[in-house]
């Protein structure tokens, strides 16, 4: 990126300025360490780590994943080290890099969300929070927070009330009206919205006649879900005025550009990193090439330019 004629790639996500719009999606990039040998983490727009909860979680029993047509199912069960160990053991490593670290957080109660947010805001070295509301609400009989506009709003307000960090709320696609949820999250004070999380799916082993996942169902990710993700990003962009981050099946720069044109201010790369650990760098370079080829000097001149 030496060339002065290179396009400007900088984007602003609710106060958080990113050197480029390419982030890693939570749960698909571990705690950053796992990929630090494969790519230069400093080149990422932002690094989003695995979802963190108040207490350590051991996750679901195996099998946890299965391949599907153009995608995969996972039921990791939000395994993570818990916020304490994250701050003590994982965060220090990330402080060696010059990349914004965004922590994906979740809880089973509003209170849990609030306390994780608090802990991370005081930790230092955390540049933003991404609130995963596709988590089952134990008090509400396990319905996802993200499926209920009021709950989504409440979680957002509570997290915002305890942190000064930019807060992006990550939506679940398993809802009837994504724009409605987005609206109530915006009303709750979110600085940005990211979507989509995984689509709930299932697959069956016809020889054993058991589900391929021990948990029976899991989250579908990968190129298979890209059209749904793009549609939901489009619907949300048309509803809210805060920045939207596009996620879902992005495998190359062309996919990323689709989301940007549809109005996403930035994008996250998830499952693609599994099949190519360096894919984020390929996407970054591909976006740059696209802008040059089309004579676009600032990526913000591309964002939201879909002609309809």
């Amino acid at each position: 990126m030496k060339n002065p004629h290179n396009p400007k790639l900088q984007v602003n996500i609710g106060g958080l300025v990113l050197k480029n719009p390419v982030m890693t999606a939570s749960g698909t990039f571990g705690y950053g360490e796992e990929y630090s040998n494969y790519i230069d983490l400093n080149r990422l727009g932002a690094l989003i780590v695995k979802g963190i909860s108040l207490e350590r979680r051991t996750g679901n029993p195996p099998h946890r994943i299965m391949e599907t047509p153009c995608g995969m199912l996972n039921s990791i069960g939000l395994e993570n080290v818990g916020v304490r160990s994250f701050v003590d053991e994982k965060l220090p490593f990330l402080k060696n890099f010059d990349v914004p670290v965004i922590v994906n957080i979740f809880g089973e109660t509003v209170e849990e969300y609030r306390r994780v947010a608090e802990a991370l805001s005081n930790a230092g070295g955390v540049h933003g929070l991404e609130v995963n509301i596709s988590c089952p609400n134990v008090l509400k009989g396990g319905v996802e927070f993200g499926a209920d506009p009021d709950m989504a709003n409440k979680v957002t307000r509570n997290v915002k009330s305890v942190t000064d960090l930019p807060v992006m709320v990550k939506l679940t696609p398993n809802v009837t009206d994504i724009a409605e949820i987005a609206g109530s999250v915006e009303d709750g004070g979110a600085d940005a919205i990211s979507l989509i999380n995984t689509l709930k799916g299932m697959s069956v082993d016809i020889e054993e006649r058991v589900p391929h996942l021990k948990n029976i169902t899991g989250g579908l990710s990968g190129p298979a879900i890209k059209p749904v993700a793009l549609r939901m990003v489009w619907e949300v962009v048309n509803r809210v005025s805060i920045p939207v981050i596009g996620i879902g099946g992005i495998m190359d720069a062309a996919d990323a550009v689709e989301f940007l044109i549809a109005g996403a201010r930035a994008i996250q790369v998830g499952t693609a990193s599994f099949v190519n650990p360096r894919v984020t760098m390929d996407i970054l370079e591909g976006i740059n090439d696209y802008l040059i080829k089309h004579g676009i000097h600032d990526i913000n001149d591309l964002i939201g330019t879909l002609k309809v």
Partner: protein
Amino acid sequence: MPHKNSMISGRIIFNREIVKDHFLMSLKVSGHFSSDEPSFQKVSPGQFIMLRVKGDESPFLGRPMSIYSLYPGTSGLVIELLYRVVGKGTHIISRLKPDEEIYILGPLGRGFDIFPDCSCVILIAGGVGIAPLSFLGKHYMRDTANKSPKIICYVGAQRSDLLVGLDRMEEICSDIRISTDDGSRGYHGLVTELFQKDITSYNNSNSVVYSCGPSPMIKSLAEILRNQPVPCQVSVEERMACGVGACLGCAISVKSGYRRVCKDGPVFDIHEIVWD
């Protein structure tokens, strides 16, 4: 728009069926390695690679394969894989022809521990499980050349015509003991039973057992060795997505909780594994 892809490719030297549904693939490793990423310059037996067919959305994920052997070729390193066609991915991989390229990621995982002072190495292989054990056996021959340990190999297969990798094992082992489920060759029964018969003849204090094969086999081996002090390391399998420890998809249950087969394994102490 050109789809950039920075993955490492291996160019296929040959990829031939050596036994029904069992293929031997030889790959020349090309492409750039970033200096600090895992490199094929130092590989330990038991490590594996992820294979992915080029420019293709199906099969979508990489396929983990143990390194069967690895040596410097005329131009770059040569990696050999021994694999069985079981489903869609391995079927497509088996159709690749010489000179075609395939993406590879690796070397990955924690290989077998080497016990330099042991005087007796016992390898227990089920089916293609012989691949990493064969690599390990060669390693013992080389590394401990001066006081090379006795290497004994138990090889199990369903039928005599499904036995693979014996040729190389013969170069490595002082003794090979074969079993087949149908008795068509060697001992009639499970390879673990065959091993069990001999177990008393081994001196636990200076022996080490390594095994790789189908879960039921590993499980029964765990039974057999439960109260034996002899160290036993096994290479296990689980579905994988990333292969580098990031997705937590390849969990295996061990006494202390869940471990990642791709990163904390694939080699584990057999007594650590919790069977459901």
